[in-house]
């Protein structure tokens, strides 16, 4: 009887914790729910209006929809490249002991923080300029991918390290090529990890302002992270009517993309190898 009660109490406790956490995360977002529909939004999150005038005004900017599409494209390009390159690399680094690989990985990880900072701006620009890739998505994708790869490999290697090699060994004996082994045996096992770095790449690219800003010039190539700054006035103040509406538009696609990756590839380990 006592055990059952303890179980219920634990259940209730956990549920309460989760509910509190949910509230903690949801409450600050109220502003984004109310302000876009408020005819005179302020920093207070209060229901007012509701009106669609802010959205109508935001669409006066002909670049709004284009920028959202651009953000989606850049996020997808980078995600695909990162996941592909990182999976190949993490698998190889897990299975073969290349000398100094751990140290190398850590050093690369540290370098990626230098490159994502503002101080690396000029070297990156000059490099991409010399390659003739200024104002191209290729240039932006390559630079973003380079910055994201060390961490992606780092994360994924953790997964490939802990997957058993017995099935791979059997497959080798049966003549499967390394690539086939990777594709058919390893990838399904490390899918949760791949999903994590996929989402992480998308999120990073979605919010990245500096790289697209310094490497792109055509206004209709600009992603939403850049366009969002055009909703400030010449005096540098935020025009909350336009910004709140745009912020909402800016948030929706990335949430949808996350849900898609989640639904399709999941973070759960369904079935898999029986021990």
């Amino acid at each position, binding site marked *: 009887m006592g055990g059952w009660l303890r179980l219920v109490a634990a259940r209730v406790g956990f549920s309460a914790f989760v509910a509190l956490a949910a509230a903690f995360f949801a409450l600050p977002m109220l502003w984004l729910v109310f302000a876009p529909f408020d005819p005179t939004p*302020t*920093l207070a999150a209060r229901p007012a209006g509701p009106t669609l005038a802010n959205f109508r*005004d*935001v*669409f*006066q*900017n*002909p*670049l*709004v929809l284009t920028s959202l599409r651009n953000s989606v494209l850049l996020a997808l390009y980078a995600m695909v490249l990162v996941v592909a390159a990182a999976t190949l690399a993490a698998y190889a680094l897990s299975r073969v002991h290349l000398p100094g690989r751990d140290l190398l990985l850590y050093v690369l990880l540290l370098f990626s923080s230098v490159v994502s900072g503002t101080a690396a*701006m*000029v070297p990156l*620009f*000059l490099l991409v*300029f010399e390659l003739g890739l*200024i104002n191209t998505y290729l240039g932006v994708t390559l630079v973003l991918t380079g910055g994201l790869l060390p961490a992606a490999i780092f994360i994924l290697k953790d997964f490939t390290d802990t997957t058993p090699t017995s099935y791979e060994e059997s497959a080798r004996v049966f003549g499967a090529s390394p690539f086939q082994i990777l594709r058919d045996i390893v990838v399904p096992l490390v899918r949760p990890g791949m999903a994590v770095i996929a989402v992480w790449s998308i999120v990073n690219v979605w919010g990245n302002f500096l790289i697209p*800003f*310094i490497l792109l*010039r*055509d*206004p209709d190539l600009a992603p939403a992270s*850049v*366009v969002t*700054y*055009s*909703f*400030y*006035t*010449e*005096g*540098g*103040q*935020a*025009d*909350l009517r*336009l910004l709140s509406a745009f912020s909402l538009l800016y948030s929706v696609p990335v949430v949808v993309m996350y849900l898609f990756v989640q639904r399709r590839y999941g973070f759960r380990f369904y079935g898999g190898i029986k021990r």
Partner: protein
Amino acid sequence: MTLKLQANAVKGGKNATEASWLQDWVIPNFQKLMADQGKQVTVQYAGTGADDEDVKTQLALDLRTGGGPDVFTPDGPWVGEFAQAGFLKPLDEVVGSEVNDWDGWSQIPRPVTGIVEFEGKRYGIPVGTDGRVLFFNKQLFARAGLPTNWQPKSWDEVLQAGRQLKARLPDVTPIQINAGTAMGEATTAQGFIPLLYGTGKNLIDGGKWLGDTPETQAVLGFYQQLYGQDLGDARLQLRADGRDRSFAQFADDKIAVLLEGDYFWRSVINPDGGLAPMKDRDQAVGWALIPARQPGGGLNGQDFVSLSGGAGRVINPNTKAPKEAWELLKFLNSKEALTNWVQREPRITSRTDVNQANLKDPLLSFISRRVLPITATRPGSAVYPQVSLAIQTATENVAAGRSDAREAAGRLGAAIAKAVGADNVTGAS
């Protein structure tokens, strides 16, 4: 022949009206004008919609690699640092001596041309300008027993009005003069420098930057009195959104006096689409010239002072079509073009003839008539941002009560000396 034109203006976003003007009127009409002269010129509009500092970065990167738009719109202070880096060359070098024959020059007041000048050479044509004044709330003044046609003649008179406001209207913050690093350049441009002009000196005086001198001590002393006597809201200066808030508070009749530029009138408290609209702006808000410390004590012996900023349109020295670019530049600043812009939104253009004919708005014509002749501009040096930061820090320390004026001026001198080299500072302390 294609020309690329850049401005920090985007339809439906930043400087939306300028973008519409450029894309819907200027470009088609210019292309037609060229066609009528038998020249095939297309103009591409590259509107950047970003923070000024970011646009500057983008332009600097492009110019450094020999690229960049043919005609672009740098902020006035950048002209100097771009010129120092070789990114910009004087107009007559890029185009030829015919630039001096343009009839528009006579319509632009001397201080305004200063916006696009560096070391005596002209680099472009100023886009427009602005002026800073003391805005005040006439209704609050009436309730406090102060004149609604207030025009202080000295710093003391300003502080006195503040004290009277405080005594009669305890719920109202009497005076808002920007201080602190959170407000960034707004502190230097709408706070420190106009006050400094009031002591008779500019930031660069006799070839050297002003460090710890009697004038800077006086300015910081004013800050000390203002915030020390609780005539201003010191905490507001520390907030990341302090400036936005100060505007909202003025609009709510919670601040009585605010030192700002016409941007405030046009885009913030404008009842028609402003960020913090005041329905009764035209009746309730008055303006006064910024007084010197005492009459005759201001820059050039003036009784009143102001500061003007603005952007300029310049020609890229890397351009492949300098003559056509000059045609575009002239067209952008022609009487008809600027008139069309002013009709879309009232603003102070660089040309007196356009201003006189079109400015109906009382504040804007006041600025054009009374402020522009007495105004001055900031130095366009590459190290200016560091100097500005040192100034912001000094005002913050005084406003927050962490140091007194003398101490803060001492540190200011040291910081500026570090930035520009001790030999270039008066009062390096």
